[in-house]
Each structure stands twice: as structure tokens, then as C-alpha cells.
């Protein structure tokens, strides 16, 4: 489920566009377009939910329970009579919130750590950082979140911190690898010869150069975060009721699988499309930023 760890550790696979015919200049990259549309859909749903939802998503309406598709409730209602579409819309908010915080935590702490490891003069420092990183890799996001939940109690906060912490090594690794690359380029060597401080070099040369890579990773990590959040809510380690969340909608749908499978279909579709969107967006951005992957000689 968490391809992100792998994605960070390795050169990402040649993506669709890299493998396809060399893209002509100006021709839209399908990954980028589809990814952006799907992500836009999720974001749009979340934003709309702030100003409008068909119903209050937590409003219990017992007479209308388990209503099918219809004019009153477009996507029907659940076993408490809550409107499925409204829950989906507000659930998008939860998903994005967890993703933004988790990826933010990971990027904002992992990147500086990786840059320091890449620029450190002392081998001890850089080795120490990378070993700590490897240790952290032994604790996948889901496990970490369950540990956090066991000790501090399950909540949205523990879930997103756990996912964020588990994603730190991915960013640290990428940042370090790219920093090492940038540090050996001629313009950095020249800047060092001219007596620029390390901080100045980091700000002027390193960060701008790793930025695009970080954006790509952020998108891919976001997909992982969405998956992890869904799994945690499904297990009851994420967002607590009554706040709607896609993972918990699925969990509630499970016992009704024989009665109302559609209750599982919609949140399931939402999760899958969101993950697909962020993954495709990441691929598309990678193709855009890294034309080397183009398979022309």
C-alpha cells in the first residue's frame, strides 16, 4: 500500500510519458492533465462543502435511513439516515487536511535534515542522520499511527503526525541525494571558492534546485497519506465520529455489504480517485521537470 517509501528510496520508475514517444513540445501530458483534474475535483468538493452541502452531513434522519438513489438524497443515505453525498464532501476536507499536515510535517522537517546531511562536512553528522532515517523506515506509517493511538489515544492529530513522521525519511533521502548532486556542480564549487557561506549556498543554489523534486515527491506522498488516513479511519485510529471521513464510511459500510453495497462503493471510489489523482499528478510533474527520462538518445 505504501509505494511511497519505495518511491523515495529509488529512482522512480520510468513513467508513461517517458516510455512513450518523445513528447512534442507543447503537447499536453495526459498524466498531468488527468491527475490535475482528479485532484481538482477533490479540492473543489472540499471547498464547496464549506459553503454548501445538500444536508448537514451529521444530521441523523431515522425515517430516511438506507434510502437509495433519488432526488432527495442523490447518493442515498446510510443506516442513520445521514446523506452520503454530504458526508463525502466533508470527508474530502478531512482527507485533504490530514494529507496537507502530514506531507507538510514530512517536507518541512525531512528536507532540511536531508540538505544538512548532504552538505555536512563531518561524516559523522551525515552518517548519523541517515542511520536515524533508516531506523525510522522500520516503522511504517500505519504501525506508527497505531503506536501513537495506543499511547496518546486515537485522533485526527495523532494520525496525521504519525503519517507525517513516517514520511520524513522519504523527503530526507531525496533531499540528500539531490543536494550531493548540486554540491558537486561547477557553479557551487565556484561559489564555495568565492567564500560563500554554507547557508548562502544552501539558500541560493541547493533549495531552488531540489524544489521541483520535492513538489513531485509531495504529490506522491500525498497519495500515500490519503491511503494511510483511509486505512486508519477504517481501523478506528483516525478521525473520531461524528466528523465524516471516507475510511470510516467504508468501515460502517462493511456490515451492510449485503444490504447496501453502494455505501461502500462511493467512499471507495472517492479514495481510489484521490489516490490515482495525486499519483498521476506526481508522474506528470516528474515528466515535466525531468526531461532526461525521455528515452531519446
Amino acid at each position: 500500500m505504501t509505494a511511497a517509501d519505495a518511491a523515495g528510496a529509488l529512482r522512480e520508475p520510468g513513467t508513461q510519458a517517458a516510455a512513450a514517444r518523445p513528447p512534442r513540445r507543447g503537447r499536453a501530458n495526459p498524466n498531468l492533465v488527468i491527475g490535475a483534474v482528479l485532484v481538482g475535483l477533490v479540492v473543489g468538493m472540499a471547498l464547496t462543502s464549506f459553503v454548501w452541502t445538500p444536508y448537514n452531513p451529521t444530521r441523523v434522519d431515522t425515517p430516511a435511513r438506507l434510502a437509495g438513489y433519488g432526488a432527495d438524497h442523490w447518493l442515498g443515505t446510510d443506516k442513520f439516515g445521514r446523506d452520503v453525498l454530504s458526508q463525502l464532501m466533508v470527508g474530502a476536507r478531512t482527507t485533504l487536511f490530514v494529507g496537507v499536515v502530514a506531507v507538510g510535517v514530512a517536507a518541512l522537517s525531512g528536507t532540511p535534515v536531508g540538505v544538512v546531511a548532504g552538505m555536512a562536512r563531518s561524516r559523522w553528522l551525515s552518517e548519523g542522520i541517515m542511520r536515524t532515517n533508516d531506523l525510522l523506515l522500520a516503522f511504517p506509517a500505519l504501525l506508527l499511527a497505531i503506536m501513537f493511538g495506543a499511547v496518546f489515544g486515537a485522533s485526527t492529530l495523532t494520525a496525521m503526525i504519525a503519517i507525517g513522521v513516517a514520511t520524513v525519511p522519504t523527503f530526507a533521502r531525496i533531499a540528500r541525494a539531490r543536494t550531493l548532486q548540486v554540491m558537486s556542480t561547477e557553479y557551487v564549487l565556484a561559489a564555495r571558492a568565492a567564500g560563500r557561506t554554507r547557508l548562502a549556498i544552501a539558500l541560493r543554489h541547493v533549495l531552488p534546485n531540489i524544489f521541483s523534486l520535492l513538489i513531485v515527491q509531495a504529490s506522491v506522498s500525498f497519495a500515500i497519506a490519503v491511503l494511510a488516513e483511509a486505512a486508519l479511519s477504517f481501523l478506528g485510529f483516525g478521525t473520531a465520529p461524528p466528523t465524516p471521513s471516507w475510511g470510516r464510511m467504508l468501515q460502517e459500510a462493511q456490515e451492510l455489504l449485503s444490504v447496501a453495497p453502494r455505501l461502500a462503493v462511493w467512499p471507495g471510489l472517492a479514495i481510489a480517485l484521490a489516490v490515482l489523482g495525486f499519483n498521476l499528478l506526481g508522474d506528470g510533474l516528474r515528466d515535466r521537470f525531468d526531461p532526461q527520462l525521455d528515452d531519446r538518445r
Partner: protein
Amino acid sequence: MFLASLALASVTVFAFMSVLPGDPARVALGVTADPESVAQLQARFGTDRPLAVQYLDWVSGLPTGDFGRSYVTEATIGPQIVDRLLVTLWLVATASVLALLVAVPAGVVAAVRHRRPSGAFLSGMSQVGIAIPSFLAGMLLIALFAVHWGLLPAGGWTPPAQDPARFVRLLILPALSLGVVQAAVLTRYVRSAILDVLREDYLRTARAKGMGPYRALIRHGLRNAAIPVVTVLGLQLATLLIGAVVVERVFVIPGLGSLLLDGVANRDLLLVQGVVMVLVVAVLLVNYLVDVAYVVIDPRLRRAR
């Protein structure tokens, strides 16, 4: 190196699960308890000793499967973990084999035919597969095979020794739900590894010897492509193990995951600590085996050690 990681991981797990939450005797008796009975319980749990001693006591029992006694049920933890671990291993092993059986051919075809519709279709399918969480796949499979067609049971578990036929029937759906998602992820990496290999000069040499494209790829490409794929496989096995936690919940399977979640629900922290440690050891062990696999596959690394 491996042992150092193990030691470090055990300290981390101990510190997180045993030190952070506070003294289990106090937790068990509540804040209003009188100091005397707290002290009594502490003596029984052994938590009146210095932390370093407690840690050494715990960690020295691990190699022999002694995980201590639960503070909640007072049952020994070790045997439970071993029982449950076996269940989870069945699930994970079957899922990995399924994933490899699907992903290697699919990845190879997707790479070789990457300019044709069939290759693009396979890549697209793998993208979609990656986006489906294993528990969702599990629910869909239950909805179809158990509820709709009534072909297979929706959940439960029987040990293989007791009723092999039922064991297999029960294993199919959970193994599929874990395996399908892993297959999708692996397909992507196999494809990219093969695409890289296809560009290599030695493959052209093989063709120049008179090998057909598939034959050259199988004889000279697969092993070279295995190097990056093994890395991912290692990471995947680790996430598969964790993913099993969720799938066990969907299919009501009494594996390590269920034990972990029950432990959390009962606030049985020593049990949780034990299960977490087992999972972390498994992850580290897989990483270590990946390193060993590199050396087996690649003669260039042999000299270096």
C-alpha cells in the same frame, strides 16, 4: 549492522511503549489508588526496578520468545504472538507469491510493448490497482464472491492442519486483496526496471548473438532487472505485513494484526509493545535479506565485502 539496527529499534519501541505512557500499575489502579497497593502492584509487574533493568529483562527474553506477562490479563504474551504470527505469515506469503506471479509477466509485457495499446493498458491497470487500498479490495471481493455469488466464505480462519480444504477457501479472498494491490505496485517497478534493461548494451549484444528479443530479455535482462525490483520487493514485504493488519480486520482473521488491535483496545500496552517489536524485527529482517540478495545476484558486490 543488522544487530545494531535491532538494538536501536528495541530501545525505541521500549521507550515509546513502556516509558512514555507512564507506570502501568498507576494506570491500572487509577489516580485515586493508595500508594501501598500501587507499590504492591509495581512489585508484581516488576516496574519498581530501574528502567534500564526493565529494558534488559524485556529484551533478553525476546530471542527465546519470552515477551513477558500482560499487565491486563496476566497471561504470557509469547505463545499468543507465535500463534498469531503463523496465521499472518500464511497470509503474507500467499499474497507475495500471488503478487509476483502476476507482476513479473505483466511488468515485462508492459515494458516490451510500451509503445502499443496492450502495454499502455497494463500500465494503466497498475496505476488503478495502486490507488485501491487493500481493505477496499477486500470488501469488493467479499461483496462479489461471498455475498453476490456465494462462492467463498466472507471471513474467518481454520488452521491448515485441521481442515486443509476449508483453510484454502478461507485464504483465497484475503490473500487476493493483499496480493492484487501489491501486484499493481510491483508491476510498475518491474516495468520500469525492464525498460531500463532494454536500453542496455548487453541486451543488444545478446540480440547480436542471434537471440530473439524475449529470449534475450529472459536470459540476460531479468536478473539485471531483479536488482531494483528486489529493493522494492523488500519494502513491499514490509508494507504487506502492515497491510495484513487491516485485511485481517476485514476478514476477521486471528492474526498478528487482530492481536495488535485488540491489545490497543484493551490498553494492554505490553502486548502491543511485543507485537510492534515483532513487526519491526520482521521489517528489519526483510531489509537485511534484501542486502543479502543483492550479493547473491550481483557478483560486482561480492568483492566489496
